[in-house]
């Protein structure tokens, strides 16, 4: 009898889990944002109207945050409203001093609470990073438990919120930017995206790094070069061009693709398609003098030429063409190294890490003012281009 009562009581306990999760929230009742843009502080256009009617609170307008909300309502059902059908997203901007406070201010404007579980992309305007440091802007984003450290971070040349706008129907800019990495196999101008967890590590170590730069125009966006964040200050200090960026990717082993275009003796274009890149950085320490030797070797094919001359696919001719490409790629690398060492005086290519692995004691001495030491170090460059074939084309 007792055991039967006990069994009945235990069965009653089973009704407890039937109620489901204590803190469950239906996704229909949440506003999921996939993109976040950070700009310099100024009231957003809508906010100006609201503030004119007294919708104000105490703030200094240090930053403007824009979230890109993906409305579930508009996605499934066919809306008669033309505008909603055109844009499967909704951008909401607000300005203030604290990112979380701005987010909470959205809650007095939107019909659903916003939630950061599915944030994919953060775009920061370079202008804002001139005034604020990376640490300040990333602080909340790293602390928050909803936002994943896998979120990718980008810079924008103009206003960051424009990067989250698109003129193409059915294009969600946040997803567009996220998927751009699929192009990495075609060109190394598309860098491996830097995630929040990488930024956390880099800024904790006061290392300088680059973030992909986004430019916008005519409702479209393009990845153009990369902005440099100086480790010591945490500010944006300048931009590398598109060719510098691909050189940087080849050098730092993060990119292995792309084309090199040179002009032959008749000034006609000659294009080389890279199949693989090997890069080796050797450091040498001689007393206080630190020097590096960079060896880059490319393997690929001649894929396009506008030359009117005969194009024999012989080894001797291949060597002649390889020399032209080699000269071009050396010049590109030299430009990059000059920019890093003389213009920006910043190591974003991982020379410091190479030194720390190859000569730990020298690194320990130099690491406190590494960017300075780096800009004075001697770097020898050694490029080697191999042409393996001429495409599906043979000529004697």
């Amino acid at each position, binding site marked *: 009898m007792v055991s039967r009562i006990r069994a009945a009581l235990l069965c009653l306990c089973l009704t407890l889990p039937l109620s489901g999760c*204590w*803190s469950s929230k239906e996704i229909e009742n949440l506003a999921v944002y996939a993109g976040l843009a950070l700009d310099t502080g100024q009231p957003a256009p809508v906010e100006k109207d609201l503030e004119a009617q007294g919708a104000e609170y105490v703030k200094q307008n240090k930053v403007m945050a824009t979230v890109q909300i993906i409305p579930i309502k508009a996605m499934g059902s066919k809306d008669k409203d033309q505008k909603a059908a055109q844009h499967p997203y909704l951008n909401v901007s607000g300005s203030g001093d604290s990112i979380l406070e701005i987010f909470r201010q959205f809650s007095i404007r939107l019909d659903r609470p916003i939630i950061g579980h599915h944030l994919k992309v953060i775009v920061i305007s370079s202008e804002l990073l001139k005034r604020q440091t990376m640490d300040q802007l990333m602080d909340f984003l790293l602390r928050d438990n909803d936002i*994943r*450290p896998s979120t990718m971070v980008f810079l924008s040349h103009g206003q960051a919120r424009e990067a989250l706008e698109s003129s193409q129907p059915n294009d969600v800019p946040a997803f567009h930017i996220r998927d751009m990495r699929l192009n990495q196999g075609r060109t190394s101008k598309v860098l491996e995206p830097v995630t929040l967890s990488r930024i956390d*590590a880099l800024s*904790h170590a006061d290392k300088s790094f680059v973030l992909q730069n986004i430019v916008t125009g005519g409702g479209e966006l393009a990845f153009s070069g990369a902005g440099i964040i100086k480790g010591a200050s945490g500010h944006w200090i300048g931009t590398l061009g598109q060719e510098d960026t691909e050189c940087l990717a080849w050098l730092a082993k993060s990119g292995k693709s792309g084309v090199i275009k040179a002009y032959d003796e008749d000034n006609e274009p000659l294009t080389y398609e890279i199949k693989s890149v090997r890069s080796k950085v050797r450091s040498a320490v001689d007393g206080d003098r630190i020097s590096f030797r960079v060896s880059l070797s490319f393997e690929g094919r001649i894929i396009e030429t506008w030359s009117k001359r005969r194009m024999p696919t012989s080894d001797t001719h291949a060597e002649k063409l390889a020399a032209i490409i080699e000269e071009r790629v050396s010049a590109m690398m030299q430009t990059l190294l000059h920019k890093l060492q003389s213009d920006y005086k910043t190591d974003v290519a991982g020379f410091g890490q190479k030194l720390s*692995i190859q000569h*730990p004691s020298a690194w320990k001495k130099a690491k406190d003012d590494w960017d300075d030491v780096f800009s004075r170090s001697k770097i020898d460059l050694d490029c080697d281009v191999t042409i393996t074939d001429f495409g599906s084309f043979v000529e004697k």
Partner: protein
Amino acid sequence: MFVRTDDKITSSQAVVFLTNTVLGAGILTMPRGITQAMKTPDSWLTILVGGMVVMLVILLMVKLGQQFPGKTVFQYSAIIAGRIPGGLLSLLLIGYFISVAGFEIRSLAEVTLFFLLEGTPMWAIVIPFIWAGAYLVSGGINSIARVYQIVFPITIFVLLLSFAVSFRLFDIDNLRPVLGSGLPPVMKGLKSSILVYAGCEVVLTLVAFMQYPQQAVKAMLGGIAIPFGLYLLTVVFVVGGLSIDSVMTSAWPTIDLIRSFEVTGFFVERLEFPLMVVWLMQMFCNFCSFFFQSSLGLSQVFKLPFPAVLLGMVPVIYLAAMVPKSLEDVFGLGDEIGKMSLVLFMLIPVMLSLVWLVRKKGRIAHG
């Protein structure tokens, strides 16, 4: 159906029992603790050295236990050191087990609240787990071991899967230079790396429950070798994937590693949720071990019936879990537990063995 009446466990059950007792919340925080102490990427070396030390410790504890077949430390400490000193030592050990049980259940609740169930009150997570634990423990060591046998393969599979998928973030340069600052940091990290094996004290009672105590050395070393291997894998993957700078600032570095990538198109895009859910089971196992040990100790020292002690322990464990006021306190408690485990090791196996040796020698000389 065959029901055992003697409440003994087989050797393979003993292996899983020890593994599931040691492998708990530590795996989520351990890379940070060690890296903070060392400040170099050599944490895997420290884990290696620490593991060797712990294996020696376990060897000593097993040898001691084998001198008293079928008796737990709570019983043989009285034989070796006398009733009062032995009882005091047992009480120390019990107090230690209670605080570890509280710590494990609290860590479980903290992780759940932060990542999974934001907004659920702490008690609503802690109390059901304690009751479920009490139900399991009331079945005796055999039922506990059988639950462990079910849980263990699941948690290990998900953990290894998560690490395998995280290989995309792995960069060998994050683990270099090896011994860039020489050996001193490895020694500095040694303390933290021994702490992650806290809980191996259960060997002191486990040997008594083994059906074939003569296999105890093999079983216990096997049981510690599994966490040893997994800890090694964890530091290599977490430091290799995140770099020491990120590991040092992260509250739960192992979870952050898994949160740092998305596997588009996989059957779960975000592996942290399966990992956390199965790791809750692992922490629950952990907690049950210590719950069982402390209740067993109290009932043996004071000669009280086991079920009564078990029920009486429920509120005590709850209080132990709720004592830390903040997350920082919880991590602080974790460190204290590690230190306590060192002190207890010096007090119990080492001292008891010495006394035992002296008395045995004396007996032979007089006999």
